[in-house]
């Protein structure tokens, strides 16, 4: 008795295998897409965390939040804030040199220098009212005569594709210097095709500078 397979059997086998492989491929492909989505969404969260952590560390190392940057507002005004070029976070970091003898300081010199750091936002498309924003960090060093060294100023891009970012302080009569700085940052996936399915995350944090003015 011949024990081989017929063409029909082979065809059926191929069809079954095709269906199985197609199903498997679909499952794999779906899983891969889902994983990609999850990774991309996590990437949004990571970007949020990383950016806020960076600003937080920056502020905590600072001595003084420059008054008015950001502006102090009433609690009821918070929901009305929107991203703008004028909304800036500006603070100063002092760097001391304790190896100097104060009697050796020339007239007008102090034993510290400082860096003035500004976080600000720029629209990625000036013409598009729905444009995403880029967060920039500029640094302006001051010398030990309290004079700005404009030629040494730098600007560094912290993040692109920001949907919303606002800085503010709350008016609180019982705190010194306007209390904490609040940062509200919102990121939205820009690569998803379906607008309604865009992953979006928004975090608001508050942080207080640790240092103080040396005088």
């Amino acid at each position, binding site marked *: 008795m011949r024990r081989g397979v017929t063409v029909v059997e082979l065809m059926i086998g191929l069809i079954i295998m095709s269906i199985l492989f197609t199903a498997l491929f679909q499952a794999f492909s779906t899983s891969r897409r889902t994983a990609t989505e999850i990774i991309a969404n996590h990437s949004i969260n990571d970007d949020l965390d990383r950016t806020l952590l960076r600003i937080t560390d920056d502020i905590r190392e600072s001595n003084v939040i420059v008054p008015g940057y950001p502006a102090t507002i009433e609690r009821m005004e918070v929901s009305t804030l929107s991203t703008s070029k004028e909304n800036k976070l500006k603070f100063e970091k002092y760097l001391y040199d304790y190896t100097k003898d104060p009697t050796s300081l020339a007239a007008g010199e*102090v034993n510290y220098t400082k860096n003035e750091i500004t976080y600000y936002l720029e629209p990625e498309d000036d013409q598009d009212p729905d444009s995403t924003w880029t967060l920039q960090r500029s640094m302006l060093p001051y010398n030990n005569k309290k004079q700005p060294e404009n030629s040494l100023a730098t600007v560094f891009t912290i993040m692109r594709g920001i949907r919303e970012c606002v800085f503010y302080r709350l008016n609180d009569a019982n705190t010194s210097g306007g209390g904490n700085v609040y940062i509200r940052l919102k990121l939205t996936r820009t690569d998803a095709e379906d607008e309604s399915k865009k992953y979006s995350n928004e975090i608001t944090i508050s942080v207080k500078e640790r240092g103080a003015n040396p005088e």
Partner: protein
Amino acid sequence: MKGNNMKSRHGSAIITAIGMGTVMLFIIVAIYTFSSYRTQTIIQESRRVKALAIAEAGLELALAELTKNSAFATHKLTKDFTWLATENREHMMQDLSGHGLKINAATSGTYSGKIGDGTFRVRVGVIPYADDPETTTIDESHSYVRIESLGRYDTAIRRVDAVINRRYPAREFLMYDGKVLSMVYGLPGLTNTNVFSTGHLYGHEGIEIGRIMLSAHNPTSLGTTQELNDMNAIISGAGGIFIYSPIKAQFRARRGLPAKTATIPTNTVFPTGGTFSSPEARKSGEMPAEIASTTPALPDELKPWIKDRNEKMSMPLSDPPFAKYKSDAKAGGLFFGASDSSNKSIKYHMPTGWTEDGSTKLNAVFLDFGSNLRQGNVSLPNNFNGVVYSEKHIVVKGNPPKDIHIVSDGNVFMAGDFNQAGNATASFADYYGMAQDYKPGENAMTAMDYADHIKERFIEDAEPGATFRHHVAATVVAQERIVYDYRSPVDCFENEIYPFMKYKLASAMGSEANAKDNCLDRNRNGTINFKSGSTEFEEAIDQFFTDYPIEGTDAANSTPTEDTLKQKLKDLHTDGNLNFDDFDNVCREVWKGYADNYEIAASGERGAPSTFAQSGSYGVYKLLSGLRDKMGVPGNGNAQNFNPNVIDDDPDDFLYYPELTTNAMFISCGERDTIFYAGPDVVKYYNKIGCVNNNVGRRHSETNHFVHRVFGSEINLRTHDVHRIDASYYIPPTRRKIYDPSLPHMGLTGNKYELTAHIVISWKDTAASEEEYNGF
């Protein structure tokens, strides 16, 4: 072939299965790896956050130790931040088992412990930065502290490396107030000026400065104004700075900032019809709602010196270390318990409305450290550790011989000149106490401070090896109030009245010209010439006591004290003229007669004038008035028509303008709880007693006619509840609150009691390795 087909078929299935399995495994591994990575990242991040929190807690604990013991340090440190040898230390913080806090026992080196499941190791050292001679009010060699704290949680270790600016408010600030610092002193209808000179002013919840314009929030005639001189900064921690009238101000230069003279413009119109939470609150210093939470504008050009809450210079302070003070006073100082019955314990008479229970006396200890003109009643023990502590109130005057902390659980009454000794051996000008000389052409009312060569004596006191100190490092601390007590002219103006009394007596016994040459002018080698006729001499002595009686108003009914003194003086005639020292010895006995008869004779009681001293006939009042007449003080006894420019205060004589002098760091904790109208209002009862006609004194002077000179600092923490005082009326003196430039240095090294504030001026968080932690 068949076998091959079969093999091929079996092989395809296996390969397919392996292939599918591989794909599945790949997917599973990928998902596992991804989720595992995420999990591990989150776990590690969580550990890092916890380790950072523990490192921060270590930093805060070190700051708490520094607050409780300003001499706390674990290691020496180089300028480039290298840790050197360990330092002996004593930690004050206690374990809190309920909160998982345990501090490891050690007497030197790294400060370590456990918080929850984590551990910390901290090093603290003073950065050996040199003192900057340009910053008069700060000693930079004690002002910067590095704290490096390592926190460990499981495998994560974080490091917080911070530099702390240590501030010594009692040494640095002329005035500090834990609530609103009110600089509105004086009376309406006057043109005198209170001067506040050098250092910082700080009001934690705001500062108000202005001329007298209101009385109980009703308009009144303009009055005394305030002036700021040589100031470093005016700082409000969490409030506004309210300027009610233009204030002349002069700010000192700092590095990178020139000196500035300006008039601080008015920025607040005080609302006379303001809104208050209650009528009682209005009388208790509450600011009206209309301005209470505002931050009035200040000129940009003055912002380097005037800093409101927007500048974030908040410096709240903790209580002084009372428990430590008490234990140290018992161990090697002077301690007076609540039931002390030594001869220092007295009943101190108080004005009506002053005591909590309505009684007329308070239990106190009376401490007189003596002066150039009298012996005190305090003997310090051998190896005195510098602390005097009383659970009773303290009444104090005189010149402490050593650096000292005078601490009371209640009030401290400053009842006479304090801490300003004259070096009579080295300088004849200091014979009766430190010479209170002003520059030629100036006087106590026109000048802000003594002449430069006098001021330098205070600075020299702080120099190493100073053989004589006109003032010592004195800290006066009260859990309740520091009270300036102007009731007794004998105590307040002793070194001013005594030379004048001596001059008047010499004038009576001889001639005015001779008395002037040898008693008022600084001439120690002259002779006090007596009247030649004994009858004339004796009548002159009688007349002196008629003019300046010690007891009673009728010379014919002279009392035994006067009789004794008179006879002693009359007997001098037979011996002929007297040299300076012999005449001075006699005069001191006469003065003692005045002083002894000022107060009632009741044993163990102080503070109540005798019946005679409650009348205007008492000789000391007349001598005080005569002193002013001699100096040409206009309107003597009348506050009006006063022109300070005509006062004749020659810098080369012993004529001194009436002045209560209290030199120290004054630290009180009591809330302000008395009648106190906010704003440019005259109805503000500061903690003062006396100079009014009542059961504890006479109105011996007007505001224009005596000066209260505080050379040091005044810290009012407002941290303790105190009973209310509703009847504390007094005549305010003209004020001179002047910063003492020896404060940043004198008595600071190794001082564990200092009141300190700590400001983080640099902070960095980094990772650290296991090896670094273990070796720390």
